C-alpha cells in the first residue's frame, strides 16, 4: 500500500544548504501493508515526527527542507505533493489535538475533511454513524470540543482523520499528554482499526511498553539518517529507547525477548532473579508546609483544601489523572500561580508575599512549557544572562548545563534544541538559583529512556544536596526510578501519601511494569534487579 524508495530528506539552513552533513532521513526503503499496525520509535530528536510528516506531505511543505526519492501510495508517486492532495489517502493526528481543531463542536470537527473533499451528504451521514459508533462518540456529537477530556479529544481527532476515507493513519505521539486510562483507550482503539477496518496505522510513541505487545512491526528512526523496519523482537538493540520490559529481558538473557507483560510474567516465574532492596531516603528537615490551600478558576474548583509538607533530602512525586489539579497545585505552591485561599509556610515566609527574586530563592519551578522561559537568540546568551541575573561567576550556569546535556555548540538557537536539551537548559537556569525547593511539572514528556535516566541521576544528586524536589508526572516508570514518596491527587484532593513501594506495587492502579511482571513485594524498578 505504501512503498518508500530511496527517500532522503534534509532540513536547510538560512543559506539554503542542507543543515547537517548527514540528511535527517537517508535513503529509506520500506513497505507498509494494508491493516498493518506499526510502531515508529527512536531516541529523542531522531526525526520520528519528520518521518511521519514526509508520508503526508507536511514535510517539506510545512517544515521546509528538500526531499528526494519515491513515495508510492497505491502505486502512485506522491513525493512533494501538498498535504491536501493526499488527504483522501492519509489521515494525520498530532500530539495536541486542541491546537489542530478547526471547529468548536464535535460533529463539525469530524465532518470538516469530508466537506473539503466534496463527499456527498448521504455518504457523510453513514460515515459519521459508523465512525462515531466505532470510536464511542455517539453521545458527544453535539458537545463543544473544549468540554471533552484529552482522551475523548484524541478520539475525535482520529474520527476526523478517517472520515476522508483514508486507509493510512499517522499518529504523532497521540498519548503523550494523556493519563493511563486515556492512553490505553486510544491504543486499544488503534489496534481495532488496524484489525477490523484494514487501516494501516503508523504510531510514533514514547510509551513503547504499552504498545509493543500489540503491534505487527516496528520502524526505528535511528537519528543518524538510517531508518529500519522489522519484527518487534529484532528492533530493540539500542538501549537508548528500549522499554523496561525489553531491558529486563536483555539483562536476564531471555531468548526470545518477552514483548508483553504476560510473556514476561511466565519467563520470570520460571527463573526469578534476585533483587536488591530499594533505598528510600529518610526525610530531612521540613522545608515547606502547605496549609489548607484552595485553587479555583471561576466556578471550577481545581484544588480543594489541601495540606502537605515537603522535606529536604526527599523526592516527592505528585501523581493523578489529567485534570486532577497537579499543575494548579504546583503553581500555587511556587507562589506565582492563582490561590483562592490557604497559605504556604517556609523559613522566609509565604512565597506568594515575596518579590519575584526573593520567591525564586525559595521555590523554583520547571513548568510544562519549559521553552516559555527561553527568549534569547543563542544558548550562550541564555547561559550568560542567567549568570548576570543570579550574580554568580561567569560560566556557572554553563557548567551545570554541560553536566546535564553534554557539550553543545553554544551558538545554537534555543528553539533548535531538542525537547530534552531544552529541559536541561531550563533546569540548569533554575538550579543556579540554589533554592531549597524545586518543582518540576511533567518533565519527562517527550524524553526517551536515556534522557530520563540522565534526569533521574541529576535529581538524585539534588536530593543528596539536601534539596526537596516535587515532581508532578504521569510517568509511572520514572516515579519508580526516583521517588521516595508518592502523593496521589484525585479531583483536587490528596487521596494517598505513601511509599512508592506500596503505591506502585503489583495489582495497584498505578503498578509499575516491573512490579506487574515480577509480582514481588518491594521490587518496582529495573535498577533493583541483580543478575
Amino acid at each position, binding site marked *: 500500500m505504501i512503498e518508500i524508495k530511496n527517500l532522503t530528506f534534509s532540513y536547510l539552513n538560512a543559506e539554503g544548504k542542507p543543515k547537517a552533513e548527514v540528511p535527517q532521513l537517508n535513503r529509506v526503503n520500506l513497505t507498509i501493508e494494508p491493516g498493518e499496525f506499526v510502531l515508529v520509535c527512536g531516541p529523542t530528536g531522531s526525526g520520528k515526527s519528520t518521518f511521519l510528516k514526509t508520508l503526508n506531505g507536511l514535510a517539506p511543505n510545512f517544515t521546509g527542507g528538500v526531499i528526494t526519492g519515491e513515495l508510492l501510495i497505491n502505486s502512485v508517486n506522491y513525493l512533494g505533493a501538498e498535504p491536501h492532495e493526499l488527504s483522501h489517502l492519509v489521515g494525520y493526528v*498530532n500530539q495536541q489535538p486542541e491546537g*489542530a481543531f478547526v471547529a468548536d463542536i464535535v460533529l463539525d470537527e469530524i465532518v470538516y475533511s469530508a466537506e473539503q*473533499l*466534496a463527499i456527498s451528504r448521504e455518504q457523510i451521514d453513514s460515515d459519521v454513524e459508523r465512525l462515531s459508533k466505532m470510536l464511542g462518540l455517539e453521545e458527544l456529537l453535539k458537545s463543544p470540543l473544549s468540554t471533552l477530556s484529552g482522551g475523548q479529544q484524541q478520539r475525535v481527532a482520529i474520527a476526523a482523520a478517517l472520515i476522508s476515507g483514508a486507509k493510512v493513519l499517522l499518529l504523532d505521539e497521540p498519548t503523550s499528554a494523556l493519563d493511563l486510562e486515556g492512553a490505553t483507550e486510544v491504543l486499544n482503539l488503534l489496534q481495532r482499526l488496524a484489525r477490523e477496518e484494514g487501516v494501516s496505522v503508523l504510531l510514533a510513541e514514547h510509551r513503547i511498553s504499552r504498545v509493543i505487545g500489540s503491534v505487527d512491526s516496528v520502524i526505528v528512526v535511528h537519528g543518524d539518517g538510517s531508518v529500519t523496519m522489522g519484527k518487534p523482537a529484532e528492533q530493540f538493540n539500542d538501549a537508548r529507547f528500549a522499554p523496561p520490559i525489553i531491558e529486563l529481558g536483555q539483562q536476564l538473557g531471555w531468548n526470545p525477548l518477552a514483548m508483553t507483560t504476560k510473556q514476561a510474567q511466565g519467563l520470570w516465574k520460571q527463573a526469578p532473579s534476585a533483587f536488591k532492596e530499594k533505598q528510600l531516603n529518610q526525610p530531612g528537615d521540613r522545608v515547606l508546609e502547605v496549609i489548607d490551600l484552595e485553587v479555583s478558576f471561576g466556578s471550577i474548583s481545581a484544588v480543594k483544601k489541601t495540606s502537605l509538607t515537603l522535606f529536604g533530602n526527599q523526592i516527592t512525586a505528585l501523581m493523578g489523572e489529567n485534570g486532577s489539579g497537579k499543575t494548579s497545585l504546583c503553581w500555587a505552591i511556587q507562589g506565582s500561580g492563582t490561590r483562592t485561599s490557604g497559605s504556604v509556610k517556609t523559613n522566609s515566609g509565604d512565597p506568594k508575599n515575596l518579590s*519575584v527574586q526573593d520567591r525564586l530563592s525559595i521555590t523554583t519551578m520547571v513548568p510544562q512549557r519549559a521553552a*516559555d*522561559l527561553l*527568549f534569547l537568540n543563542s544558548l550562550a546568551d541564555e547561559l550568560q*544572562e542567567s549568570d548576570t541575573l543570579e550574580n554568580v561567576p561567569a560560566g556557572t550556569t554553563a557548567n551545570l548545563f554541560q553536566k546535564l546535556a553534554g557539550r553543545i555548540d553554544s551558538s545554537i538557537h534555543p528553539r533548535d534544541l531538542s525537547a530534552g536539551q531544552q529541559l536541561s537548559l531550563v533546569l540548569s537556569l533554575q538550579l543556579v538559583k540554589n533554592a531549597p525547593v524545586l518543582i518540576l511539572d511533567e518533565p519527562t514528556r517527550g524524553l526517551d529512556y536515556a534522557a530520563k535516566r540522565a534526569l533521574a541521576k541529576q535529581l538524585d544528586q539534588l536530593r543528596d544536596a539536601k534539596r526537596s524536589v516535587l515532581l508532578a508526572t504521569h510517568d509511572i516508570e520514572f516515579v519508580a526510578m526516583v521517588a521516595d514518596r508518592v502523593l496521589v491527587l484525585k479531583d483536587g484532593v490528596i487521596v494517598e501519601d505513601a511509599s512508592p513501594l506500596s503505591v506502585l506495587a503489583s495489582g495497584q492502579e498505578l503498578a509499575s511494569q516491573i512490579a506487574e511482571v515480577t509480582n514481588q513485594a518491594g521490587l518496582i524498578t529495573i535498577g533493583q534487579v541483580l543478575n
Partner: protein
Amino acid sequence: MSAGAMLTVWLCRDDAPWSRSIRFYLFLGGIVVLLRVIFRVVFNLADANQDVFISLPSISIDLGLGNSLHLLGIVSVISIQAALVDGFQLAAIILSIGMASSLANPRKLLRATPGALYEIATAVSIAINLAPQLIASLKLVRRARGLRGHSKGIKSLTGIIIPVLEDTIEQSMQLAASMSARGFGRKGNRTQLQLQLIRVATFLTLTFLTVGVAMLLFSPAEQYLDLTVIVAGIVLAGFTLKLSSSRTIRTTYIIQRWQIADLVIVVSGVLILLAAFNGVFSK
C-alpha cells in the same frame, strides 16, 4: 454606539478565550480619549471669546522659526468638548473592531466563507485571531517569566515579546498544517483557467468595493458616481461568489441556521448604514 457595542459583547460573550480580549480594546479606547484631551490642553490655541474651562500658566517656547510656540494657557470649554467628541469617535471605532474580534469566532467565519475566497478568508481569520491569541499567550508567558527572575533593561521586554510571538506564530502554523492535512485548499477538478478567473474576479470585487466606500467617505460631492462604483462592486461580488462556490468542490454538511440574534444584528447594521448615507447625502 459604544454602549451598544458593549451591550452586545456583554450579552453574546461566552467563555471562549477570544471573548475576553474586549477588556484590552476598552483600555485602548480609554487611552485614546485621554490622549486627545491631554494634547488639546497642552497644544492649546487660546481663544479669549470662549467660556473658560481651566486657566493654566502659559509657556512660550521660541523655536527660532519666527512664531513662538505656546503651550498650556487658558483652555476653553468648547475645545475640551471637541477633544472629547473626537476621542470618543475614535474610541467607538476601536471598540467596534474589538467587539468583532471578541465575538466573531474565527473558525466559524472560515467555515462560512465560499470556495475560492478561501485564500483571503484565511488571511482575515488569522488576522482577527491574532490579537486574542496574543493575549492568551501573553498571560502564559508572563507567568512563566516570573520563574526566571527580572532581567534588566531591554531584555525584560524581549523576554516577554519573543516567546509570545514565537508561540502565536507556531500555533497559527499548526492550525494551517492541520487544515491542509485535512483537505483544505484543494483545487478539486477546476482548471488552471478557472482558478485564474476566480482570482481576478475576487481582486476586482474588492477593489471596487473599497474604492467606492472610500470615495463616499472622502468626496461626498459626486454621490452618483460613488453609488455606481459600489453597486458595480456588489454585482461583481455576486458573480465571484457564484463562480467560486461550485458544489463539486465542497459539500456543506453543517448548515448554520439564521437565528433571531443574527437577524437583529443585520437589520440594525443596515439601519445604521442607511442613516450614515442619509447624513452624507444631506450635506
